[in-house]
């Protein structure tokens, strides 16, 4: 049975409140898969959200002050409200509402930013890498996520994705062609 935005956000909320990184990653995988199949924008936003939360939940610095804890509680409330709304609103409106929650996540990330690349940018790159590994083309993965193609190639090149599938013709045949072209 395919994933719905409502079920995804409910799972994200439960996992966020329990600080369960493993479950957030699993939900992230499911959202990415659904996005690859349907290209529904709401699934991209849910993928970014679940990825971001997995990163936040796993880092003590986001929970180490009353101010940040308060912020987390507000975020949890926002998601809880959204979880109820999602049962009755169309997916495109749902996507916009998730984007507004993501802005809060970005705000939290920027308050103690450690890397040049923002959490959202990292999420998009990671999602693009997974889409490419699953079998979508490089340009398709870039188009669907807004990731940079060079960044994606470098990211994917550092993984084992090319070892997990056939690369077609033997290299000796390709080299024969190269020799015909460049004499």
């Amino acid at each position, binding site marked *: 049975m*395919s994933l719905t935005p409502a079920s995804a956000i409910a799972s994200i909320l439960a996992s966020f409140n329990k600080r369960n990184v493993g479950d957030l990653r699993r939900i992230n995988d499911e959202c990415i*898969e659904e996005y*690859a*199949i349907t*290209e529904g924008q709401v699934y991209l936003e849910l993928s970014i959200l679940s990825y971001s939360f997995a990163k936040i939940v796993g880092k003590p610095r986001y929970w180490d002050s009353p101010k940040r804890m308060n912020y987390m509680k507000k975020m949890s409330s926002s998601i809880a409200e959204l979880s109820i709304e999602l049962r009755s609103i169309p997916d495109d409106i749902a996507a916009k509402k998730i984007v507004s929650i993501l802005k809060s996540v970005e705000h939290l990330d920027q308050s103690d930013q450690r890397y040049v690349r923002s959490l959202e940018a990292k999420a998009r790159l990671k999602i693009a890498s997974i889409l*490419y*590994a*699953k*079998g*979508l*083309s*490089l*340009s*398709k993965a*870039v*188009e669907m996520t807004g990731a*940079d*193609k*060079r960044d*994606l*190639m*470098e990211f*994917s*090149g*550092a993984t*084992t994705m*090319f*070892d997990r*599938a*056939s*690369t*077609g*013709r033997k*290299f*000796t045949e*390709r*080299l024969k*062609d*190269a*020799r*015909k*072209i*460049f*004499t």
Partner: protein
Amino acid sequence: MQEKFLPNFHPDSLVCDSSSLISLAESCFVKVFYMLADHSKGRFLLPSGVEYECISYPLQSKNHALSAVRLKRAVNDGKFSVVDTGQLQHLTDEIRNAGNSVFLLRGHPLKIIQQGECEMLALAHAAGLRYCLIDERTTRMLVEDPKGVKEHLAAEFHTRIDLDHRALFTFQQYTKGIAFIRSCELVARAYELGYFENYGEIKNSAFEAAMNKVKISGCSIMSQEVDDYVRYMTKKQ
């Protein structure tokens, strides 16, 4: 059949996808194009979309301007020919639509390729050219081994994937006969032609390092393939 608005390109010309330009530029191997251009009667052809993606657009960015500058210089030095593919939009769309109808998941087409890669295929088809340079995996495998792509998708999506034979036939009408090489083949051929001679007794190490670098930069080559390549090439030298 050669499209009338296109110039006549030598049959050894190589239509380039952005993925290979990126791998080689990011690995600091743009000079490989310089060397190989002198060893071919054909040209390195850049569809206009590839030129924009690899040169014009990133020139405006801090992060990737350097590789764009290197490629721009190669264009200015005559090592690449940029081909205006504006009139190929309809053909590009046909190839993309066919390619995106080949695989069905839950009865719906799974869209796996995009304008960029299809523009390269469209130019090769329209110009009657056989050779394409691409490091990206999916497009290449869709042409070379569509059943393999189907199996891969089924494994990755954990579900049955159906193949639309009519869509595949249409796609293959545009792509049959196209032979793909990757940036690693360019590096290997350059090695054979003496590109690494300046390294003297460590030229084999240089070649191995170069092959690993293009792999890490995104060329779709298996780790085992790199090892096999190095063994094969360095044994012959």
